[in-house]
């Protein structure tokens, strides 16, 4: 299942400046695992030390938040887009 993972601006510096990456993955968890294997520096920004997805990073499959699906076990199919959407606060500076 070829899925595209969208990498948000705050994290592109840790992903070789890429804005997206494609992987074969059957679940969201698998796709994120491929992502953090290819870009090891991303891991600490996405996951805590005990491997949980950080609470200020939301992940979507197409337009659905995985917290309302099956979280990292959410199955993915060909052509799905996984979006990583971290909390950003800028507005003044």
């Amino acid at each position, binding site marked *: 299942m070829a899925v595209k993972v969208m990498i*948000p*601006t*705050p994290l592109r*510096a*840790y992903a070789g400046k890429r*804005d997206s990456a494609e992987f074969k993955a059957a679940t969201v968890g698998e796709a994120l695992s491929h992502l953090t294997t290819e870009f090891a*520096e991303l891991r600490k*920004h996405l996951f805590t030390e005990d491997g949980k997805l*950080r*609470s*200020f990073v*939301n992940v*979507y499959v197409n*337009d*659905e*938040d995985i917290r*309302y699906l099956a979280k990292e076990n959410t199955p993915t199919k060909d052509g799905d887009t996984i*979006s990583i*959407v*971290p*909390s*950003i*606060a*800028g*507005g*003044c*500076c």
Partner: protein
Amino acid sequence: MGTITQPQTGAKAAATLSNDEILRYSRHLIMPEVGMEGQLKLKNAKVLLIGTGGLGAPLGLYLAAAGVGKLGLVDFDVVDFTNLQRQVTFGTSDVGKFKSEAARERLSNLNPAIEIQAFETKLTSENALELFKDFDVIVDGTDNFPTRYLVNDACILLGKPNVYGSIFRFEGQATVFGMPDGPCYRCLYPEPPPPGLVPSCAEGGVLGVLPGIVGSIQAMETIKLLLGIGDSLAGRLLLFDALGMKFRELKLRKNPNCPMCGEHRTITKLIDYYEFCGVRGEEAPGPDLQVPEITPRELKSRLDCGDDLYILDVREPHEYQICNLNGHLIPLGELTRRVHELDSSREIVAHCRSGKRSAEAVDFLRKAGFRKILNLKGGILAWSDEVDPTVPKY
């Protein structure tokens, strides 16, 4: 969807428009979706803008232009020269003035018919509920997590919509929180990032026009709410990628277990948001790393004596082009994989722009076994202030 009920205050609602107003707003009035009825809704509306900076600039300008009857502007900051790259309410002659007052002057000139109240104050848990209560809609144009959570919670406690927008470098987010049966900020992000993990705007920079676009979207959403027209962004998270010029939309669900707006609320009053966000003290950008330091004057003195110091610059290449101390450039993000370029037997002084990134570099290198490593306190900015004023500040 998404109308709001304007609270009954002591003042009588305006029932008519003057001839001047009819002329001023003619382009609204000739649209059936607005008309006299819609314009009167705007005239009787009260909107509070939290922040009059990058997002607040287009917000204030377009809401004033549209004839929102009362605008409140909350900002404790002073106009700085570096703000003029994006905070287009201000002019060069406003540098040094309080932002809320400078914005009030500009917006009053744009539309003298509306009431504009400047609150030259920091928004806190002590004053938020009092400040918000007389307004219909709150617009979040702030730039830090503690205040965003404060604005959210105060809006939910008072039952007010919160028109949210945020930016980072080339990306923006926008939505409307706080609608009846709608999600709140905590539904989207139950917890903020710990300080230091997500790069700050001051470190990352921003294209000036980005808050212009996102702030304009917030102004549009505010006007739609007040008029009761169109489809609100409530329940949707709009993502804007300026470089790709793409808008995307994600579903933003209300969390039934949300401690603030869920079925079993556990947060019933405003809290200490700096503590919640793990930030100690006033607007601290992050916990101070305890690393050995050298001041610019000390560095200059040692270099003049002929000490063999290795200057490591952990900024980005485009910063090196602005000004540099002839250091060896390894951007902080590349340090892990380029650490072999450094000789741990030499005494190394690491610097960046203000001393924050280089403190992280020193901390990392010490953990990697480097013993002769110092952080240049205050960075190249302090070098410019204390040693060589010909070095430009940025």
